């Protein structure tokens, strides 16, 4: 059998997807990036192969992507996470309709990607080298509020007052703003709701740079946070599509790319 892998090495997590020759997703695995990207990527891939009862030699082609993609030397090819994300999103949402825009929030950056009707990337915008409006930002908030990052979404919907906005766009300064709000006994739910809206506003600004269109797909770890999804939907004024496993879109795209590259090289 012929199998293909996409490995997405991000700042926070390593995501791996394996597809068959028809680009069907067979399985995926997520692990923390930690300090040794290469080693952990290798271990994660082995674990996934084992989980799917595959043989290592059946993996015919590997495409690496993400910040750490160049560290994974065994890859047959590496592509930028923007290209991989676009391919993965179109495939993941095929039953829902056409994707025109992708919002991706990662551990250390956020992106808006605009696609043409053939799925080609026509424009993209990123906030680079700043944790504001990223997964890291949510981590910092959760840590300060002494709650699990996974419960932020639930808390969002429990907010009954006016969301308390955080005006600092810098994660470090925002932290001290949150301490100030907590010091004055404001409801944690209103703070969380305000944080989500602050991130949502930044994201919508990013999307506006590439143009707001119908058919918005949202992926990356923070897309698991339904409170943030709700805030972005309100700010952008339309529904967005969130895949069931939003963290693996980019690795899925890389795996699909692996199939195409393999077929092209062997044609």
């Amino acid at each position, binding site marked *: 059998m012929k199998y293909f892998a996409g490995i997405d090495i991000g700042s926070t997590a390593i995501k791996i997807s394996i597809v068959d020759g028809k680009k069907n997703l067979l399985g995926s695995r997520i692990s923390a990036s930690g300090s040794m990207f290469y080693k952990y990527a290798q271990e994660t891939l082995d674990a996934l192969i084992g989980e799917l009862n595959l043989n290592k030699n059946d993996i015919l082609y590997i495409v690496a992507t993400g910040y750490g993609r160049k560290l994974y030397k065994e890859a047959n090819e590496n592509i930028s996470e923007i290209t991989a994300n676009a391919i993965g999103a179109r495939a993941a949402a095929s039953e829902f309709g056409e994707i025109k825009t992708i919002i991706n929030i990662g551990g250390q950056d956020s992106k808006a990607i605009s696609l043409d009707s053939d799925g080609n990337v026509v424009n993209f915008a990123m906030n680079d080298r700043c944790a504001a409006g990223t997964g890291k930002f949510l981590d910092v908030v959760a840590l300060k509020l002494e709650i699990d990052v996974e419960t932020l979404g639930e808390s969002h919907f429990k907010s009954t007052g*006016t969301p308390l*906005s955080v005006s600092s766009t810098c994660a470090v300064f925002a932290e001290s703003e949150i301490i100030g709000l907590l010091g004055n006994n404001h409801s944690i739910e209103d703070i969380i709701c305000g944080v989500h809206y602050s991130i949502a506003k930044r994201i919508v600004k990013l999307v506006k740079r590439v143009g707001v269109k119908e*058919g918005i797909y949202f992926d990356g770890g923070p897309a698991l946070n339904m409170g943030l999804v709700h805030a972005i939907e*309100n700010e952008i004024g339309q*529904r967005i599509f*969130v895949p069931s496993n939003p963290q693996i879109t980019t690795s899925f795209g890389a795996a699909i790319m692996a199939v195409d590259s393999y077929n092209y090289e062997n044609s």
Partner: protein
Amino acid sequence: MSNTSHEIESPNEKQNRHKAMEAVKLLNTLREDFKSPILSMEYFYDLFERVYCKHESLHEGKTKIGTMCIQIPSEIIYALDGVPIRLCNGFYTDDEIGSDFMPQKACPLVKATVGQFASGNFTDKPDIVFSPTTCDQKTKAGATIESFGYKIYDVDFPRTKESEASREYWRRSVKQFAVELSKFQGKKLTKTNLEQAIKKIGYAQSLYHKISEFRKHEFVPILGLDVFLITNAFFFDKINNWIEATEKLVNELEQRVRNKISVSGKVSPRIVYTGSPPIFPNYKIPQIIEESDAIIVADETCSSNRMFNDMVAVDEWNIYDMMDSISDKYLKGCTCPIFTKNDDRIRRIIQLVKTYKADGVVYQAFAGCTVYEMEQRSVLEAMEKAGIPILYLESDYSPSQGGQLSTRVEAFIESLKTRRRNKK
């Protein structure tokens, strides 16, 4: 295309939420961040919270008369049984909405006002709107607002105030305004209702003057930020409620002065604030000033001092004399930079500095408010001649400008502190 299930806000709901978020941020700061809070300020905090966070309407069943600038005489509106609603707007959310209809470099106040009309989202929607032809942007904004389906009545305002001809011209405009409003309201202006309205507003002004007296003390009993809030409330509040709350406040301040309870420290520099008007919730610069341990003791702005400073001075209580006196108050007392020459404004700033023993002046112009931007040159020159330290700043409504502005304000305040210490 979607697989999420939560309701999405309508544009108006979104705008309301944005405004609530802006409002609550400032109100929390006022409630929590300063020492020795004033109990009777709670009425005003609560008022703004009700209107801007809970979106309560205050004047159901009354005819609301929208005014686009300070020059539309409230006395005539009250006499004709209307409620004046001043539509000068301080919300960044509305500024962003208005940006679609205005040049990019336009004044944020005008953009915000246009933005609110574009959205049609008011807690107390004006039934009729009067727009005095003051600055270019407000004058032209009238037509833009009309294109959204509102009826705007222009009230001709002269741009010179020295000549007798301009005085005549403005008196004619005010009469014309009274005729239009009278027709709209189906009510006649009489000696009695006009006199009552003049006296009521005069009384409200006298309360403001009392507050101002307290601010002259060495121990300043009230923040400039709180005073801006009180005067901004006069834009839209029920006048009787406003008077009642301000009476209570005056009593409390009287006690505070007696007990030497101060919101400022011994070295806190005393500031006179001038320039583009702080309108709720855009108190960005006043907030930076008072968070940097300085205290605003007086201002020369159209959203605060200029609304209350000059009284209607009536010789004979007959209707023609009252009308002329009202007109004069709004022209002769006005120190807006739209006038050809404006030595009055310089004189008033210097007078405020002396009367309130201020250490310096902060002059803020909205980026895009050309007349205030232009006039900074003559004001700065005059202050230099008079030996008064002055800081000139340009700002807008965007929330992300804080850092650079606060560094400049803090440095200015520190220099004033050093001067204060050296003087002693």
